[in-house]
């Protein structure tokens, strides 16, 4: 399989009043063609900022990509000029967001918003763009497409708006779709529809999807490959079945155990103690050490590197470090 997106050592920092937040800290990941890669993590893990960095949408001047490379089909996006990047955005890489209700412009009609990327990237005429826009509305499973094209966002439900967002995203046949928590704001029954649709489009067009979510259920349903992030770092990655069956990092293990599962009742849930560290107070260490049941001395002082442990499964944890005398 070809690599579509190859992120190497990406670091994105934010300057805040209290100090520098290393939101994304030396993150590498790869998305191959036709593959769904999920980034899982809790709030503050840096998963969304990673996606924003790929799109070049990190809010300057506070946020800044400070290092690494983002190769999209062999070309480093970080080296592109503003205009060149713009021709990639919405064209070869498209993105959908968490809040469909606020992600569409309230004063423009649905049709206009769908036509924009077609006219921008495909140089379509207004008429052709409108025709294609109406087709697209049909393709994402909305009936009465003409009528919907002429309506405003507030007239549609959240689920419909997310379909429209998907229609906008796939309008230029992107090679990569980045979906940032696309179903978090939606009800479960609508979530199921949207996930089905994303999978179908992937199958039909062969595009790759980088799916960002906090929901392990969604990951299990969608992903081919999973990247687990914690406090701006990748702590574990691997193919979905292997990772769910044999999680190696204590954080991944805890996360999987702490989620209640339907029809698998437990008396008490496992829970990871404590909370995510303050991003301003991080010192070189395993950032998970103060919540970890296996914390060793070395974990408090030295950062573990991401090492391959099994076929395509990598983990950043001192427990698996062969050189580590404590194991």
């Amino acid at each position, binding site marked *: 399989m070809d690599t579509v997106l190859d992120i190497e050592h990406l670091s994105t920092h934010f300057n805040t009043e209290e100090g520098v937040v290393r939101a994304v800290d030396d993150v590498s990941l790869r998305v191959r063609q036709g593959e769904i890669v999920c980034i899982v993590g809790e709030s503050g893990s840096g998963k969304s900022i990673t996606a924003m960095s790929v*799109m070049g*949408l990190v809010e300057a001047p506070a946020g800044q990509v400070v290092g690494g490379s983002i190769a999209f089909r062999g070309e480093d996006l970080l080296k592109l000029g*503003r205009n060149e990047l*713009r*021709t*990639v*955005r*919405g*064209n070869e890489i*498209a*993105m959908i*967001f968490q*809040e469909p209700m*606020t*992600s*569409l*412009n*309230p*004063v*423009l009609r649905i049709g206009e918003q769908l036509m*924009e*990327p077609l006219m*921008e*990237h495909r140089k379509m005429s207004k008429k052709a763009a409108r025709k294609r826009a109406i087709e697209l509305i049909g393709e994402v499973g909305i009936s009465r497409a003409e009528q919907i094209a002429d309506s*405003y966002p*507030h007239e549609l439900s959240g689920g419909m708006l997310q379909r429209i*967002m998907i229609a*906008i995203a796939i309008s230029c046949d992107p090679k990569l779709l980045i979906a940032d928590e696309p179903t978090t704001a939606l009800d479960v029954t609508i979530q199921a529809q949207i996930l089905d649709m994303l999978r179908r489009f992937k199958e039909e067009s062969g595009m790759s999807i980088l799916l960002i979510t906090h929901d392990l259920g969604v990951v299990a349903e969608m992903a081919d490959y999973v990247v687990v992030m914690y406090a701006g770092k990748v702590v574990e990655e691997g193919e979905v079945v292997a990772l769910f069956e044999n999680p190696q990092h204590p954080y991944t293990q805890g996360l999987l155990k702490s989620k209640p599962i339907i029809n698998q009742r437990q008396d008490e849930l496992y829970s990871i103690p404590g909370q995510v560290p303050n991003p301003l107070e991080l010192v070189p260490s395993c950032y998970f050490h103060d919540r970890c049941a296996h914390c060793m001395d070395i974990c408090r002082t030295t950062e573990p590197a991401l090492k391959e442990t099994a076929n395509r499964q990598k983990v950043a944890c001192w427990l698996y470090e062969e050189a580590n005398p404590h194991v």
Partner: protein
Amino acid sequence: MSTYITKRILYMIIILFAASFLIFCLYALTPGDFITGNIKLTPERKAELREIYGLNKPVVERYAIWMKNAFHGDFGYSLSQQKPVLTLFNQYIWNSFLLAIVSTFLTWLIAVVVGVIAAYKQYSWFDTIVMVALFAAMSIPSFFIGLFLIKIMAVDWKWLPPGGMLTTGSTATGFAYVKEVVHHMMLPVMVMTLLGVGSLTRYFRSNMIDVIKQDYIRTARAKGLKERKVLFTHALRNALLPAITLVGFELPALFGGSLIIEKIFNWPGIGQLYMQSFGLRDYPLLMGFTLFIAILTVIGTLVSDILYHVADPRVRL
């Protein structure tokens, strides 16, 4: 929609009645009137005139008469000018309107352009300078800046005429007339624009800053649209929308502000007429003017409401 408007209009009428009564009482309360103040009249003549103008009747009765006449389009008779108030209004108001229209146009133009740029470059030095300049514009007493500019630009440098609408004794017609009026308008328009531009620009700037942070702007950028398009199609429309309501509020404010500006620049408008009549205690005129602004205020509020609902698709019918 129609029930709402009916309700609003009804409330508006009640408020107007109350306001008119209050206005009437205020002026009626003031001891001394045009006749008392006129030293040329004998006491007998004064009493006679009072009788004629109904000034010796009780306040409520005089109010009733005033209102009754007002409904017939008769807002009273100016004692000092010996003309019906309405005629005088018609004679002066268009001059005021000219100033108002031109300065409003300039104010909005400057406010939108500067507000958008400042918002886009938030926290830059340009933005900081603009902000301080806007505060300055909001902090000058209108009469003082008027006097100051007359002193500098008209008296010292002799660039512009110090006041009036035409040069004294001018008989210019046609294009020459227009030119002369424009020349005389410059200073008052400058001052009126300066006074209005501060709050309006700040309003646009903060609207625009809010809008730029919205999710749909991020979407527009993610679509790969040109930055110009993101700003002017996606952001500006949303930022301008709430400003539409201001149109209604601008109306009364403009004529209200004309009192000082027209007085300072000796501009033959309705505000100057008011100030003149004020010295002479010409109550029918004063009441007429005050009521006129009150009516504009009420109508302006209503218009704002309606405009807002017409313009925003989210609340449109």
